[in-house]
């Protein structure tokens, strides 16, 4: 067990003043700053989501049907997507939680390149500032959707250049985090921690980082070409100049499909930690989970075309992509089976992180299974670009990643701030989020089945099913929003409480819990901490 005592000066107290944060190269402080920034982005994106649902609660909507207001609605869903994808969900787990936990988990004093880590955060801030300028800077509203499909993104008057440039900068931030994590995991593991003795969160973050490093540059060049398309009229993607808009989609999804695994893989890592810990039992099928993370990372590069079955790529390409898409489902399924098997004969308790983890299993299973009709070519014809897709990816992205983020947030909160939150309130928030989420998005499956297209600001009022389901969905969204508010209120309230967190409140076995809560400046009291036992060895 740890030799640190509760009285050692933790990293918050080690240095004081605002400048100690501005110039910090401490991974923990950068992680905390990332956490604050990406949580703010979550609230901004969430606000747009609630406005979307308010508009769609009734067929007539709340906006007057003039062109300006139609574009206002189109801007809402665009910004909801852009903010949630680039500013929240990609950095949330790797850059916020990962930054804090990864060096603790490998038993290092910091990530391999602390200055680059800080640069990554500042690039994030700059990217966010540019995006903010694109929203409030007086340019006409961006209405392209987060996918920036050409030729619309070339012809529309919106703030496309500003927003794509923001995404470009954010891409660098993501690359820097990825490089840092890979090198840290390769070179800075504590003595005794061989590859197959790494906690599964590290495997997940490692796979994520590979994706970040390999896929993000392609997004970079795609967005640069889009900017060149608008400014220099290069015509590579513009059919009017002999280019091909479908090529843009290939480029875009070559990044953006791996990107959804950048989003979900770290979430899966957290679930592995939490389920094992609260079942007090060795994780079932460690190697299968670890290798499936890598398998997902590899296969995810080969499935981008499943976003384009109907887009004008060759139908035979569609065939290949459909097949590969089915293949990538298998490693995810294996993980789910392993998690459930870990529960078997465990000693399960239901603290807040575990409640979220079990919600994750429930929601992610639905998210995964509802992906099958989208991978099947013939049924995808019906479901493509309808609310079914919206429901499916929210089950994966919110029900999967965000719920896993909440789980991880509650799991590591004592380590991060040194205080315990109110357990009861945490559980209540979890239940409200779970109910709100299902009401919001399960109803959207029915909308999709009956052909309700995406990105419509109104719908057929004579279709009773649509009116009902949109109504449900809107009510659910506000329940969900309420739940998330309670969640954060509970966490923030804990800062002002006097419930000090012990070093290892959950009885977990990985190295990060050997540190003090919150950790000291260079994490471990020993100069070179040694891994004494494999992870998940519960006695």
């Amino acid at each position: 067990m740890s030799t640190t005592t509760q009285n050692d000066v933790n990293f918050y107290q080690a240095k004081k003043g605002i400048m100690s944060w501005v110039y910090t190269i401490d991974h923990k402080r950068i992680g905390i700053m990332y956490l604050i920034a990406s949580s703010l982005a979550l609230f901004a994106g969430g606000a747009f989501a609630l406005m979307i649902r308010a508009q769609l609660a009734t067929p007539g909507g709340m906006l007057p049907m003039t062109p300006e207001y139609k574009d206002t609605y189109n801007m809402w869903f665009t910004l909801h997507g852009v903010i949630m994808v680039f500013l929240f969900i990609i950095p949330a787990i790797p850059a916020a939680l990962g930054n804090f936990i990864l060096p603790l988990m490998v038993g290092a004093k910091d990530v391999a390149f602390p200055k680059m880590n800080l640069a990554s955060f500042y690039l994030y801030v700059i990217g966010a500032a540019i995006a903010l300028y694109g929203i409030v800077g007086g340019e006409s509203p961006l209405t392209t959707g987060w996918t920036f499909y050409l030729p619309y993104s070339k012809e529309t008057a919106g703030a496309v250049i500003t927003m794509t440039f923001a995404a470009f900068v954010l891409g660098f931030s993501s690359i820097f985090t990825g490089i840092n994590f890979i090198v840290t995991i390769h070179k800075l593991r504590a003595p005794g921690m061989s590859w197959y003795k790494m906690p599964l969160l590290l495997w997940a973050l490692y796979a994520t980082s590979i994706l970040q490093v390999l896929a993000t540059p392609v997004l970079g060049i795609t967005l640069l070409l889009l900017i060149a398309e608008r400014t220099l009229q290069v015509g590579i993607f513009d059919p009017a100049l002999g280019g091909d808009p479908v090529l843009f989609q290939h480029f875009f999804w070559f990044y953006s499909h791996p990107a959804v695994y950048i989003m979900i893989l770290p979430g899966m890592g957290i679930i592995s930690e939490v389920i094992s810990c609260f079942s007090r039992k060795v994780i079932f099928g460690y190697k299968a989970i670890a290798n499936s993370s890598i398998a997902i990372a590899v296969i995810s590069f080969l499935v981008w075309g499943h976003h384009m079955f109907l887009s004008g790529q060759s139908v035979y390409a569609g065939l290949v992509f459909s097949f590969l898409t089915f293949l990538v489902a298998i490693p995810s399924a294996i993980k789910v089976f392993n998690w459930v098997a870990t529960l078997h004969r465990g000693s399960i308790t239901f603290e807040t992180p575990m409640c979220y983890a079990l919600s994750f299993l429930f929601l992610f299973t639905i998210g995964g299974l509802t992906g099958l009709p989208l991978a099947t070519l013939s049924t995808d014809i019906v479901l493509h670009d309808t609310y079914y897709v919206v429901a499916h990816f929210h089950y994966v992205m919110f029900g999967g990643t965000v719920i896993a983020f909440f789980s991880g947030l509650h799991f590591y909160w004592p380590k991060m701030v040194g205080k315990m939150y109110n357990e009861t309130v945490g559980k209540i928030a979890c239940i409200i989020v779970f109910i709100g989420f299902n009401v919001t998005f399960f109803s959207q499956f029915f909308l999709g089945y009956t052909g309700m297209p995406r990105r419509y600001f109104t719908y057929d009022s004579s279709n009773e099913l649509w009116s009902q389901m949109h109504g449900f969905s809107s009510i659910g969204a506000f329940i969900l929003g309420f739940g998330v508010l309670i969640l954060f209120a509970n966490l923030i309230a804990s800062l002002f409480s006097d419930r000090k967190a012990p070093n290892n409140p959950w009885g977990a076995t990985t190295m990060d819990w050997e540190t003090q809560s919150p950790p000291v400046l260079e994490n471990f009291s020993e100069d070179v901490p040694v891994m004494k036992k494999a992870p998940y060895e519960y006695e």
Partner: protein
Amino acid sequence: MSSKVDTNKFIPRFVSHHFSNADQEFESCKLGMWLFLLTEFMLFGGIFVAYVVFRTWYPETFESGAEKLDWKMGAVNTVILITSSVTMAVAIREVQLNRKGRALALLLFTVLCGMGFLVVKYFEYNHKFELGIFPGDFFSFMGDHMSNEHLYFSIYFMATATHVLHVILGLLAILWVSWRTAKGEFYEAYYTPVEMVGLYWHLVDLIWIFLFPLLYLTK
């Protein structure tokens, strides 16, 4: 030319706080750099894919476009860059052998080569602009050309401009390590930045070695 080293001349340097020894630090930096180079490859990969796609669709357009490029200038630039890569590699060797003066001279020669590359590129661009050869919609060349030849030049300008940007960044990086070399910060036990900048410069060189035949020598 003496390999005697007065170690007192060098500013002593300690391993960063979170590494346990210099080897670990060096290995980490090297891995990090290679990963960064990988991202650069993927970035240019996008342009190369666009090139392959359009060339497959419009082979004649690409031939006709390539004819308008001056392969001699391209060849000169190739020689310049390869030379600079060699001098860069030797410079690293000299740093490792503690021969500061030689290392500095070689680094500055590398910078000179890079600048030479830029000058040649400037003349090439200028010539194209005078003829009205611009990317995309601004293409206003009056001579014999294919109807969609602007696409070839869109790719040409995007690829070479992105590359030129990398050359400029590389030059700045080399100047930075030259300055640090002049200050005597590098010696046999610590030369990581020179090595990393060298790797980067080789990548810049390598990308040009791909670009040159693809763009200039299509026939």
